């Protein structure tokens, strides 16, 4: 009989070693997988994980792809630390994109530097409102926030479709489901000319710093930790458990909404039905791979973005199937959870004595 027992003292260095071990295991797994499907494994791993880092194009696209992942994961990490499970960041992201995009379109073709900040604000409000729905039901009726937030994702997607097919449709677009392209005042400035890397990435970096400060130096971080470890202790420290539910959803909704508007005003440049592409779900992997730590999330966001971009390059250049990216991400999450279990628990083969 196997028996799992929680270790009393957990080695602090596991914070860094666990993700690295998980990444190593996943690499070994895909190495074998490439061998099995008859592709040169070293070349494949090189093209997926190294090559995108060696060109301006690759780096700029990494910035583009990781920005929404990092921002959403930062927001989610607060709730996850506090034991509030927002699985519907994808929906809050979609609503942010819709609200922000609609605001930009509403001011078409006016110019002004105030258009983007205003649309950002509206998008954040949208994300928060969408997050408030599961939070309210959780706080008021104790419903399961995982289910409610997840289901609202589909509602958000349909809402976006409905708007893009209806009021926000490009009047010159032959009835095709797309909004018009945003004008210059509704488009994020580019950091490096000739690439798609936009200032949304700088916002992500600022948010990483802000989160780091809040969690380490501010009373807020203390509440978050206490809530996750012992909800009752939170009550003793003068806050209700509902306070943490609302706060978690406000923060993750706001961050996801912000990521949404950054994405539409950055690389997409218009509203299309295909705005939700799973960033809200991938961000969950990013949050855990980054150990719910702002800096960790920053690097994890980059790694996941790398798998997308490298996976695509490997498809085009080596004819690898698209599924490789998903397989790698799945194995990564699995290895991470397994490695974590091994560091936090001891496994004994002894017979279980008596009642536990």
């Amino acid at each position, binding site marked *: 009989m196997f028996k799992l027992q929680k270790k009393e003292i957990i080695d602090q260095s596991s914070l860094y070693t666990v993700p690295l071990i998980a990444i190593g295991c996943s690499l070994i797994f895909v190495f074998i997988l490439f061998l099995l499907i008859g592709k040169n494994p070293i070349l494949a791993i090189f*093209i997926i994980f190294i090559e995108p880092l060696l060109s301006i194009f690759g780096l700029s696209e990494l910035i583009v792809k990781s920005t929404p992942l990092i921002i959403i994961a930062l927001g989610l990490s607060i709730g996850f630390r506090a034991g509030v499970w927002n699985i519907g960041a994808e929906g809050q992201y979609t609503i942010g994109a819709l609200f922000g995009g609609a605001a930009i379109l509403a001011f078409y073709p006016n110019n002004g530097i105030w258009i983007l900040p205003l649309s950002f604000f509206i998008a954040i409000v949208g994300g928060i409102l969408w997050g408030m729905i599961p939070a309210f039901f959780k706080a008021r009726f104790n419903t399961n926030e995982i289910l409610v937030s997840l289901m609202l994702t589909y509602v958000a997607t349909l809402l976006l479709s409905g708007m893009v097919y209806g009021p926000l449709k490009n009047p010159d677009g*032959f009835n095709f489901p797309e909004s018009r392209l945003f004008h210059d005042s509704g488009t994020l400035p580019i950091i490096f000319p000739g690439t798609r890397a936009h200032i949304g990435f700088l916002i992500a970096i600022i948010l990483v710093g802000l989160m780091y400060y809040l969690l380490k130096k501010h009373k807020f971080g203390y509440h978050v930790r206490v809530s996750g470890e012992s909800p009752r202790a939170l009550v003793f420290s003068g806050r209700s458990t509902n306070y943490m539910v609302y706060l978690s959803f406000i923060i993750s909704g706001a961050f996801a909404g912000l990521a949404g508007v950054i994405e539409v005003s950055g690389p997409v*440049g218009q509203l299309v039905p295909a705005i939700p592409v799973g960033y809200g779900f991938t961000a969950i992997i990013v949050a855990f791979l980054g150990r719910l730590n702002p800096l960790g999330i920053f690097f994890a966001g980059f790694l996941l973005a790398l798998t997308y971009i490298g996976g695509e390059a490997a498809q085009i250049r080596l004819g690898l199937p698209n599924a490789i990216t998903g397989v790698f991400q799945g194995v990564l999450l699995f290895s991470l959870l397994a490695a974590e279990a091994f560091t936090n628990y001891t496994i004994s083969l002894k017979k279980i004595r008596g009642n536990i």
Partner: protein
Amino acid sequence: MSKKVLGSIIVILIIAVGFYYQFQLSEDNKVKKVGFIYVGPVTDFGWTYEHDQGRKAVVEAFGETVETTYAESVSEGPDAERAITQMARDHDLIFTTSFGYMNPTIKVAKKFKKVKFEHATGYQRADNVATYAARFYEGRHLIGLIAGGMTQTNTIGYIASFPIPEVIRGINAAYLAATSVNPTVEFKIVWVYTWFDPGKEADAAKALIDQGADIIMQHTDSAAAMTIAEEEGIYAFGQASDMIQFGPNAQLTAIIDDWAPYYVERTQALFDKTWESGDTWGGMPTGMVKLADISDDVPKVVVNLVNEAREGILSGDIHPFTGPINKQDGTAWLAEGEVASDGDLLGMDFYVEGVNGVIPN
């Protein structure tokens, strides 16, 4: 040796060996590189599958002188521009095979002036961006005739993807043809808002069967509806490719998109340096739209009718949209004997008279 040193050595080795292979990979510059961006997986047995058949035809036609690549399941959102850019960096000709790639294709084409782009089903062109599409409504006309001649319940189920002109045109073409054979036919239309989602498509098929449909048409890409039709013992039409393996008894015929001749022709133009931007809207006469074998269950009379219509379309004598045709609200669209203009067809945003329901907006 410490773990760190060992780890570093492995990483450096992978980088070094990777570089070595990579230089070998990029050595051959004489071949033309032709790339394809697909919206679904190449195994969808529908839309993307047929585009990939076209790619294989290019390989067959040009052999060693051409190298083809593809990226599948590229989402039409922010990822499309990156995927197209990745290809544009070292390809000569790129086919982007879904409507949602239009703006990304135009954007990338501006940056890569020497690369030729071909965008399927769009309406924006540039000096190095051509567009192409097929007159699927010609195929819809033929399957409409079969459906009208075959239905027992006088109810045809129609799984529609998105309310864009292309899809509305298909509904209208099939409806007009079906009612020309059997005026009491009614169409039940379900909008699923996806091109490829076997689960949703199967649900739609079941819902339509519950509403009395005994024949199912679809404008989505998977074979899910065909599978349901086979299970339920009713009929259906294959979409985009021959789906006979999914419905050996259920498939009456299939509208096949054959992109091979076009892809080969455009690749040839690339070699001949005669490639020019333009819009191609091919149909049955150019071989872009074909019909699979018609099932033995279809009565001889109906088969004859279909063959007659097919001959007419091939020779240009028959146009599926020939007046008199009224719009759904009763206003006149085409007068007696008048043929719809391509402009009208490309922007079609109304049902013809007799179709029930409203186009979602």
